[in-house]
């Protein structure tokens, strides 16, 4: 059974259509990168699937059911830039937020929640920074905190928006180790990714997106020059030149 089924998903942003008839299935235990040029609708796709952005038509099912029933099994890592890091709180507290849905109304987080959050920070190599104000963390450390927050949710399906953007090499390795561990445990992860050169090394599946699905499947079958060209159109050449 597919973990995630998307059918004919269409969405617009203001007046512009950013997603058009997007359809795909995701199998459990896969690590998929969503790849496409700027403005291809990658982040929007995540948000629409999570009902954080309205859709015009189409439907999405999670574990053969609706998002509402499966909310605790789905984890989301927003873009690092989407929050204000000057917020008066520390790293441990941010991780703890991942458990707020589970703590329940009118209740305060207990020690068990705190310990869980601490374990998760430790897994990301961030235990020493638990009490650090979040604006004093480096970009890579902030991303690790976000990852730790996702881990603590113990979800079965994760959506991550550019977790590898602007992080140092050590963080990139740490994050990839964690993502592979998740896959080993049978979890499913979808990652919006921007670096074409690491797609083949890091991900076993790829979804090439440019407002609609250009190709989707096992990386070595789908991540071909032709498909990538088709996804990026004319902009790819410049990108290749820029990176080499």
């Amino acid at each position: 059974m597919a973990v995630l089924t998307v059918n004919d998903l269409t969405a617009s942003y203001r007046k512009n259509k950013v997603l058009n008839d997007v359809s795909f299935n995701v199998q459990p235990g896969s690590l998929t990168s969503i790849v496409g040029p700027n403005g291809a609708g990658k982040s929007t796709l995540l948000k629409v699937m999570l009902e954080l952005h309205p859709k015009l038509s189409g439907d999405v099912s999670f574990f053969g059911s609706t998002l509402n029933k499966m909310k605790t099994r789905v984890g989301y890592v927003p873009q690092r830039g989407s929050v204000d890091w000057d917020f008066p709180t520390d790293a441990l507290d941010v991780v703890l937020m991942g458990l707020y849905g589970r703590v329940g109304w009118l209740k305060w987080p207990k020690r068990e929640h705190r310990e869980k959050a601490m374990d998760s920070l430790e897994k990301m190599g961030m235990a020493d920074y638990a009490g650090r104000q979040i604006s004093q963390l480096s970009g890579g450390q902030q991303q690790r905190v976000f990852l730790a927050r996702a881990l603590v949710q113990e979800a079965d399906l994760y959506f991550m928006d550019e977790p590898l953007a602007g992080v140092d090499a050590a963080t990139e390795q740490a994050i990839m180790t964690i993502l592979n561990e998740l896959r080993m445990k049978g979890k499913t992860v979808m990652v919006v990714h921007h670096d074409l050169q690491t797609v083949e090394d890091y991900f076993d599946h790829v979804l090439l997106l440019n407002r609609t699905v250009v190709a989707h499947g096992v990386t070595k079958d789908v991540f071909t020059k032709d498909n990538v060209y088709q996804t990026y159109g004319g902009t790819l050449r410049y990108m290749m030149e820029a990176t080499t």
Partner: protein
Amino acid sequence: MNILLSHNAQWVIVSTLILGMASGMMGCLSYWKRQSLMSDALSHAALPGVVIGFALVGVKSLPVMMLGAAISAIIAALLIHWIRSSTRIKEDTAMGIILSVFFGLGIMLLTMVNRMPGGNQSGLDSFIFGQAASMVRKDVYTMLILAVLVMLVLFIGFKEWKIFLFDPDFARGLGLSGRLMNGIYLTVLVLVIITGIQVVGVILMSALLIIPAVSARYWTQSFKWMVILSGLFGGGAGLVGTIISTLGEGWPTGPFIIVTSSTLFVISLVFGAQKGLLIQAWQLRTQRKVHVSSSQSNLTQGGE
């Protein structure tokens, strides 16, 4: 309608018409600088300057009070900038702080001045709610000079403003000094504010700048037309609002101008040719239709 014909009422009408036009046009700059509420902060912050200006001279001297207002507004703008740039406090919080603390200081000083001999007759209170009805021929000239100035600044540097507002980085690349443009912008904004507060008061002044610009946006995509329309809306609201306020005994001019302006806004919101509700509802419907028909054609053609 007798009062309409009175000599004084005519001056009032002409003044508010011109003021509305000037502030409507200036408001477009504020809108695209994404600083609509800055005008609110600065007009509140002008109050202590007005009172100090009065206290220093001891009599109601308009030029001195306006100068005081201008200085106080500019200090406020600099403080907002300083707070925002040197701490983690965000701009809206900085504006809120300066707005309320300056206004509080203004009220403190006002209460003290009102106790001074002759202070009570100063009409200082009118700066809070405005006093359009008391305007005379001299005020019309002031307004005219102001309006001409605003238009000149806009016309002479029209393409510079456009680049500066839409793409400040690009403007800097072209060698357009951001500091100079910001300086001119702030100067003209403060001029409009200190003129306007005599008419509508410090509390409602920002509405003269904000509402016409927002309304104009519903009709056009072109910056040039937005400025022209905004000027027309502002002037129209000034004219109509003033006339309505003359119909009743003791009806306040400022609030009627604002409500007229808001009515124009609601009309624009619903009927506007660019982003109006009606046109958007229609577009959404056609978009859905197109979507349905295109997915049908996709099926028959087997995709792209």
